[in-house]
């Protein structure tokens, strides 16, 4: 049994695997299948100040090796999150990352301030949601935007602050640097890539929102590249994600520079994916006589 524990920005994880924000709700539904305590952590659904119903359905489409979603940040709002969801989650003996997604800097600051009063372990600031008209990706698309929102939220919280980056940019390493400068404790990437599918019979986009965010195995090479570029650009740790489906994928992303790994769309294909990935990592490490998962981080040797 290899030692799978990792540390990200001072927070200890029993293993590096974290269901990604948005695919896992607040965990309840998966407790029917496995104990949440087996997970390294849980990233909760993006929270706004007030309740949001999200975009109109259909909100999902399949693509080769992946999928598109346009949920659009449906959530019960920060008060309901803190009162109804968090107390339950905080008992689960796993790291809780509260994903926040305000549509203005002020809104994000308010949410962070409210979370400051809770026991949540980390804040994951989503500056990269492609499915909302205001805020979301707009913050993450420029260095100035990323820097200013990070700086503001940084001031509002003493909790470890993870900033979640968008892949829909020309130079993600520059944005990573701006975020580091502004005080982020860690980065998480990648969020979804903006995509579209059309039903050719009806000549209408499949998603009611026309476009949506692409995730799943198809985007994995882009995630590996971006994690590697960011790891070369910043000193803060990176939580990698994007298309991770197997233990080997998680190991590859860690070699590229990730300290921990989130799993999204793969959970739709296999609801046990996070647990399977932990088991597969363990097995590969043992077979290759590697004692700790930690030593994988950033160990790729470029040509």
């Amino acid at each position: 049994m290899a030692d799978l524990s990792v540390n990200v920005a001072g927070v200890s994880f029993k293993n590096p695997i974290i269901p990604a924000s948005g695919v896992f709700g607040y965990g309840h539904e998966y407790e029917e299948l496995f104990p949440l305590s087996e997970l390294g952590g849980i990233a909760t659904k993006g929270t706004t100040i007030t309740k949001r119903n999200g975009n109109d359905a259909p909100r999902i489409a399949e693509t080769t090796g992946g999928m598109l979603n346009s949920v659009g940040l449906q959530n019960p709002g920060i008060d309901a999150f803190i009162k109804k969801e968090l107390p339950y989650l905080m008992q689960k003996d796993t790291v809780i990352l509260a994903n926040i997604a305000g549509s203005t800097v002020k809104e994000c600051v308010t949410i962070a301030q409210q979370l400051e009063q809770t026991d949540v372990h980390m804040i994951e600031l989503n500056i990269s949601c492609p499915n909302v008209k205001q805020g979301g990706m707009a913050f993450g698309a420029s260095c100035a935007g990323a820097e200013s929102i990070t700086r503001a939220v940084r001031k509002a919280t003493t909790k470890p602050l993870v900033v979640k980056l968008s892949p829909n940019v020309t130079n993600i390493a520059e944005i990573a640097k701006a975020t580091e400068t502004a005080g982020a404790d860690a980065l998480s990437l990648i969020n979804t890539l903006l995509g579209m599918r059309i039903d050719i019979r009806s000549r209408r986009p499949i998603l009611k929102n026309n476009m949506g965010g692409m995730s799943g195995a198809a985007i994995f090479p882009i995630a590996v590249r971006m994690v590697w570029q960011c790891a070369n650009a910043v000193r803060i740790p990176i939580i990698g994600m994007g298309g991770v489906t197997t233990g080997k994928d998680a190991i590859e992303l860690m070699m590229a520079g990730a300290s921990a790994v989130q799993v999204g769309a793969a959970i739709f294909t296999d609801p046990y994916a996070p647990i399977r990935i932990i088991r597969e990592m363990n097995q590969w490490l043992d077979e290759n006589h590697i004692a700790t998962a930690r030593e994988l981080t950033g160990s790729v040797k470029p040509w």
Partner: protein
Amino acid sequence: MKYTQGEYRLIRKDNLGQDLYRFVLECPEITAVAAPGQFVHILPKGSTLRRPISICQIDRQAGTLTLVFAVRGEGTAVLADLRAGDYVDMLAPLGHGFTIQPDANRVILMGGGIGVPPMLALAEIYGERATVISGFRSMPAVMLQEEFAKTGAKTILCTDDGTAGLHAMVTEPLLEEIRQEKPDMICACGPTPMLRAIAKIAEEQGIFCEVSMEERMGCGIGACLVCACKMKLANGEIHAAHVCKDGPVFNAKEVAWNG
């Protein structure tokens, strides 16, 4: 809700018509807890997303579930290629089924097209107390009429083009049946326009009505919020419920039909 995920053996496969298949699957632990109106979430090999298919029959004794599905796109085409003896990856049983009223004297079950199969599990419960009104586009699409007859239910068949049964929409015999004797409940599954029309009739006549809704899904268990369906709350507010967990069966009155 109690569900499991695993690979279950396909013990029988029948072709019920063009691009229409019936699967009988051996899955005692699912059968033990499944109820009419619930669905299974099947993974076609090679797909990222699972496909929701309603439960058609539940045989607790044999430990088998029956499903009926139409080939629509790539995933259902992959499923249609499976052979008896193959294994099928299912997450099931999911969702919220129809309310079962053990004391009901009269229940009307309404199915349209591929919405007909889930009515069979209900007909098997209500037997002679049920009237099944099923509608299809045309004769070649008609299915399961013998199976419904076997339950003892009264069956009324309609086709859009009159090639089999009545040349009528399912709402015509529904109104006639209500006139004859008001039912305790209407259960319906089918295309949204049909459900909307049935819901309107039920509301006007003050009959309790449940409808099974369709929406594209991700997780199938209520975690990803993909399968939104708009509901009117008592206070008039619009709320996005989720077909996979809050449904697929909803009280017809609560659905925001124009939302």
